[in-house]
């Protein structure tokens, strides 16, 4: 994770060396690339810039080719999703030779943060009532309505993405943003105006660095499995609820869902990787 001292620890990509109203901020550093927050065209338009720096340990020709390929495939997959109405950041600019991709900045918190805050608040409430605060979230009753609605939106977003023939490759609650509703976009139902608002917002799927075009049910099932595992390890108390609601909403959004969910059962039995035999 990025800390203040990490900012500018690395050389910036050339494009960010040119003047801007606010200095670029290093948001996160991954294995392959870095994500900066900066501005596009005007000081008032925030953007995310994903930069894949040259890897000195690779042969330069191979390195250039891999970087180019990965930047382009991420850009294409984002653009495809956007055109097909899957909520993802819009692509603003690409320079595949320089290894960067500039995208729309998505406001709000990752879904992981929002759910954890919500669970924390719930625990505090339970303790205040003299209970232990580690009860499993059942999804029943008024109190859990917000979480159920959020999980439904996640399932629907993933279903729509699979429907257009994209698999994400690294689906986690950290790779989904909860973007504050825009005017006219809030859902008419399932939208609890009296809640604390922690779980309100549009789901936007981010980080298509490992995404690919695929319509195979195996790949789709692995996407769901990875999300399920990631969810179970970050929010164990809501695991059961998660699986049920997600599958339900996924089924509604995506006609081929039953085959994928059948496959998901196989994947659960053996894990993400296919058998090493044959």
């Amino acid at each position: 994770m990025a800390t203040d001292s990490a900012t500018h620890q690395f050389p910036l990509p050339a494009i960010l060396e040119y003047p801007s109203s606010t200095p670029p901020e290093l948001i996160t550093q991954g294995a392959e690339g870095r994500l900066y927050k900066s501005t596009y065209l005007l000081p008032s338009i925030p953007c995310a810039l994903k930069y894949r720096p040259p890897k000195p340990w690779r042969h330069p020709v191979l390195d250039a080719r891999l970087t180019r390929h990965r930047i382009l495939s991420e850009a294409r997959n984002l653009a495809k999703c956007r055109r097909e109405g899957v909520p993802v950041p819009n692509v603003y600019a690409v320079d595949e030779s320089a290894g960067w991709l500039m995208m729309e900045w998505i406001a709000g918190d990752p879904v992981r943060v929002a759910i954890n805050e919500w669970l924390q608040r719930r625990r505090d409430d339970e303790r205040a009532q003299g209970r232990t605060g580690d009860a499993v979230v059942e999804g029943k009753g008024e109190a859990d309505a917000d979480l159920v609605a959020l999980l439904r939106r996640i399932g629907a977003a993933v279903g729509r993405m699979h429907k257009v023939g994209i698999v994400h490759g690294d689906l986690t609650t950290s790779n989904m943003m909860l973007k504050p509703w825009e005017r006219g976009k809030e859902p008419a139902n399932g939208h609890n105006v009296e809640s604390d608002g922690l779980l309100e917002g549009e789901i936007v799927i981010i980080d298509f660095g490992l995404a690919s075009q695929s319509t195979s049910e195996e790949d789709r099932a692995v996407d769901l499995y990875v999300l399920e595992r990631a969810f179970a390890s970050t929010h164990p108390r809501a695991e059961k609820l998660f699986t049920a609601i997600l599958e339900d909403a996924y089924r509604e959004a995506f006609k081929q869902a039953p085959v994928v969910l059948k496959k998901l059962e196989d994947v659960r039995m053996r894990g993400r990787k296919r058998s090493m035999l044959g």
Partner: protein
Amino acid sequence: MADFSILETIKLEHVPESYSVHVAVFRDVENATYLHQQLLARNADFEYALIDAGVITSRLQVLSAAFKAITVQLAGTMKTPNMHSELVYSLSPTNNISESYRRYGITPTSRNLVIVKIIVTPPVPLAAIAAPEAAETTSAAGTKPPLTAQNVEKHLLTHVQGKPVPFTDQTLSDLTDWGRVRKYYKLNGVGWLDGIKDQAAKNSEMDMLVMGGMALRGV
């Protein structure tokens, strides 16, 4: 005189200090044929991006094209003779250069124009980065008045017979031909757009898709 500046000067984020972008919008232009001829004749005094306002949806679309033209020029990978033709080409989501001039650039029948001039101060020796024709035109332009925003504005007011209007999203959207935008940027097959009832929200989604299409050109 108008109560707005006819030529708006914009400094883009993440381009070198020496580059400035200047934009004017003219309505009801009477002499598009003449302006078009100057481009065909490669008259260096008319090195502008002359854009048909019908295909423009927003300020950002124009500025995106300018940004792309500048970055491509800096990288030395221009595919057209100069930064201004590159700007017009940048509006296109496809790799067909002559088609991009026809669709996004001025035509003899254009009525409304968005005109962009990118000024580089101090000027870079063009010969080093551009095609030989461009180098010739600079030497010919050696005795001309310096390229400043005032001189550009004066030149436009002398040669463009039309009504200047401010470069705002409002004036641009009045001039947008959504039929052409939808066709050129292949938005007709995008069914979910028609589900958006709020016209402003729909236009801003289309604007986003237009910018995405430009960014993804040929990749």
